[in-house]
C-alpha cells in the first residue's frame, strides 16, 4: 500500500499524485504512440473511434458527471460539429479555423440549450434535450440547400499546413493529441474554481447558490463547454466516416453517448475514456460471439439486446461503472486481506433541507 506524505500545498495541485502514476500513464502514452507501428488497419480504425468517442464522452461527462445535468440531445452537438466542419471544408476553410468554428458553433448552441436547463430538472430536462435533438436532426434533414438533406455530405481528408492527414497513422495522432488536450483541459478546469462550482451544483444547488455560485452562469457554461467538446468530436467523426447524413445523429446516437458515461463511471474522467473504449469494442465482441452461437440467436437484434442488458446490469450492480469497478479491484489488492464489502457503499445521506423549489 502506498502512503503519500504531503509537505506542500502545491502537491495537491499536481496532475500526477505520485511516481507510480507517472510511470503507468507514461507507459500508456508510449504504447499509444507506438500503436500505429504494431497494429493493423482494422485496429487503427477502432482506435480512431475510441479517441473520437472519448472526446465526446469527456464533454458529456463534464455535464452529466460533474455538473449533474442530464442531456439526451448530445448527438445534436455531434451533428452540428460534423456539419460545420463539412461545410467549411467544402468552402476551402483551413482545418485550424474550421475545427475551432465547429467547437464554437456547438458551444453557442449548447449555451442556448442550457437556458431551459435553468428551470428544468431531471426527467424534464431529459425530455427538453431530447426534443432539441429531434429538432436539430429534422432541421439538417430539411435544410437541403445547405446540408444536402438526406443525401448527406462528403468530406475530404484533413489538410493542415500543407500536411495531409489521410493516412491511418497521421489521423490517429491528430485524434490522440486532441483527446489528450481535452483530458488536460478538463482536469485543469476541475482543479480550479469553475470546476468546483460545477461539482457544487451537482451535489446541492441550494448551498452552491448560498456560497455565491451563480447557478445560471455556471449551468449554461457547463452546457456550452460540454457541447463545444462534443462539436470537436463531431468534426473528427465527420472526417473519420467521410460521409455524414442526418440518420447518423438520431436519438439512438444520443443514448449511446449517455451509455459511454454510465458504463465508464459517472463522475470520473477515466470513465469517459473507458466507456468509449467499451462502446467501440463491444459490437466487435458480439460479432465474434455470433460465429459460435446458433443461427436463430445470432440475429440482427442481438447487439441491441446485449447493449440493453449490459446497461441494466451496470446500473443495478455497478453504478460507479467500469472505473468504479477498477477502483474496487485496486483497493482489494492494496488492502489485502482487509478489504470489506461495504467500503464503497454510499452511506445513506442524511435528510436534506426542505427543497425550496
Amino acid at each position, binding site marked *: 500500500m502506498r502512503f503519500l506524505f504531503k509537505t506542500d500545498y502545491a502537491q495537491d495541485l499536481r496532475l500526477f499524485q505520485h511516481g507510480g502514476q507517472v510511470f503507468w500513464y507514461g507507459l500508456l502514452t508510449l504504447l499509444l504512440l507506438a500503436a500505429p507501428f504494431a497494429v493493423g488497419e482494422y485496429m487503427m480504425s477502432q482506435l480512431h473511434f475510441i479517441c473520437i468517442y472519448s472526446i465526446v464522452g469527456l464533454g458529456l461527462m463534464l455535464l452529466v458527471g460533474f455538473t449533474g445535468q442530464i442531456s439526451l440531445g448530445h448527438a445534436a452537438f455531434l451533428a452540428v460539429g460534423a456539419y460545420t466542419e463539412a461545410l467549411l471544408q467544402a468552402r476551402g476553410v483551413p482545418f485550424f479555423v474550421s475545427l475551432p468554428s465547429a467547437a464554437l458553433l456547438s458551444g453557442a448552441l449548447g449555451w442556448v440549450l442550457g437556458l431551459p436547463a435553468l428551470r428544468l430538472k431531471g426527467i424534464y430536462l431529459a425530455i427538453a434535450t431530447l426534443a432539441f435533438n429531434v429538432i436539430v436532426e429534422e432541421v439538417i434533414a430539411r435544410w437541403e440547400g445547405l446540408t444536402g438533406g438526406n443525401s448527406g455530405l462528403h468530406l475530404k481528408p484533413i489538410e493542415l499546413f500543407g500536411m495531409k492527414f489521410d493516412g491511418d497513422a497521421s489521423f490517429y495522432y491528430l485524434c490522440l493529441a486532441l483527446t489528450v488536450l481535452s483530458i488536460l483541459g478538463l482536469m*485543469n478546469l476541475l482543479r480550479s474554481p469553475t470546476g468546483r462550482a460545477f461539482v457544487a451544483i451537482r451535489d446541492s444547488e441550494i448551498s452552491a447558490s448560498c456560497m*455565491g*455560485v451563480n447557478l445560471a452562469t455556471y449551468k449554461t457554461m457547463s452546457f456550452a463547454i460540454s457541447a463545444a467538446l462534443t462539436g470537436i468530436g463531431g468534426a473528427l467523426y465527420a472526417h473519420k466516416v467521410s460521409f455524414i447524413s442526418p440518420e447518423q445523429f438520431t436519438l439512438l446516437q444520443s443514448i449511446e453517448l449517455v451509455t459511454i458515461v454510465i458504463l465508464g463511471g459517472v463522475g470520473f474522467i477515466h470513465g469517459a475514456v473507458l466507456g468509449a473504449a467499451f462502446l467501440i469494442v463491444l459490437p466487435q465482441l458480439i460479432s465474434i460471439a455470433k460465429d459460435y452461437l446458433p443461427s436463430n440467436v445470432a440475429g440482427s437484434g442481438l447487439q441491441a439486446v446485449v447493449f440493453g442488458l449490459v446497461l441494466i446490469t451496470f446500473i443495478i450492480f455497478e453504478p460507479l461503472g467500469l472505473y468504479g469497478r477498477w477502483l474496487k479491484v485496486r483497493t482489494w489488492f492494496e488492502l489485502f486481506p482487509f478489504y470489506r464489502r461495504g467500503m464503497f457503499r454510499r452511506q445513506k445521506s442524511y435528510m436534506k433541507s426542505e427543497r425550496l423549489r
Partner: protein
Amino acid sequence: MSFFKVESLGIRFGGVVAVDKVSFEVKRGECYTIIGPNGAGKTTIFNLIGLLYPATSGKIFFEDRELTNFSPHQVADLGIARTFQNIELFEHATVLQNLLIGRHRHRRTLLWQELLFTPSVRKAELAQREAVEKVIDFLDLAKVRDSLVAGLPYGVRKVVELGRALATEPKLLLLDEPSSGLNPEETDDMAFWIEDIKRHLGVTVLMVEHDMNLVSRVSDRVLALNLGSVIAEGTPVEVQSHPAVIEAYLGKAA
C-alpha cells in the same frame, strides 16, 4: 449606519402567514439568537435573508444596502454566509473541496486561464488553500481533510458546514440550529467555536437555536418568535423569564 436590520418582514404561503411584520436589528460584533417553538418561522426568516424566498412585505438592510435588490448568489458576495439545519454539504467531494467552494466568492481567475492552468491560477489556488487551512486549523478538521463527506458522521459534517461558511470570510454568519443532532460534548465544542468566531474572528453571528444552555452561553441578545410574530426581545435571561415566552413554550395556566 446600521449593520444588519430587518424591517417589518413578512411572508405568506397562500393563507398561512409564516412570518408577520418581524423587525429586529443586529449590531456589528454581537451574537443575536432567534428562538421559538417549532413552526415559529425562524428558518423561514433565514431563507428570506438568503433571498431563497421572495418576501411578501418588508425590507432587509445589510450595511445600509437593501438586500432584496440582489439575487441569491450575490448575498454571499456581500459577506453573508449560512449553514443549514439539515446540512447541505457537497456529499461526493472531500472536506477540503467543500471548504474550497467556500472560497468561490474570492476567485479572481478567468475561464481560459483555468483551462490552461496558468501560473496565475496556480498562485491563486495556493492562496485559497492557505485561507482554507486556517479554517481547518481553527475548527480542528485536519484529520478529516481528505475524507469524502459522504462517509463522515453527522457531528463532523456539522463542523464541516460551519467551516465552509467561515471559508467565505463572512461579515455576518447565519447559523441554523448549530447544535441540532449533536451530543452534549459536541454541543460544548460548538459553543466554544461560536464564541471564538465572535471574539477572535470578529464575525457577527445570527443564530437560530433551541438549546437554551447554548443560547444563554453565547448570545448577547435573544429574539423570541411565536407563530411568525415577535413576542419578546432582550438578554437571554430577560427573554427566558418573559411571560409570553413561557406561555408560548409551555402553554397558559388553566
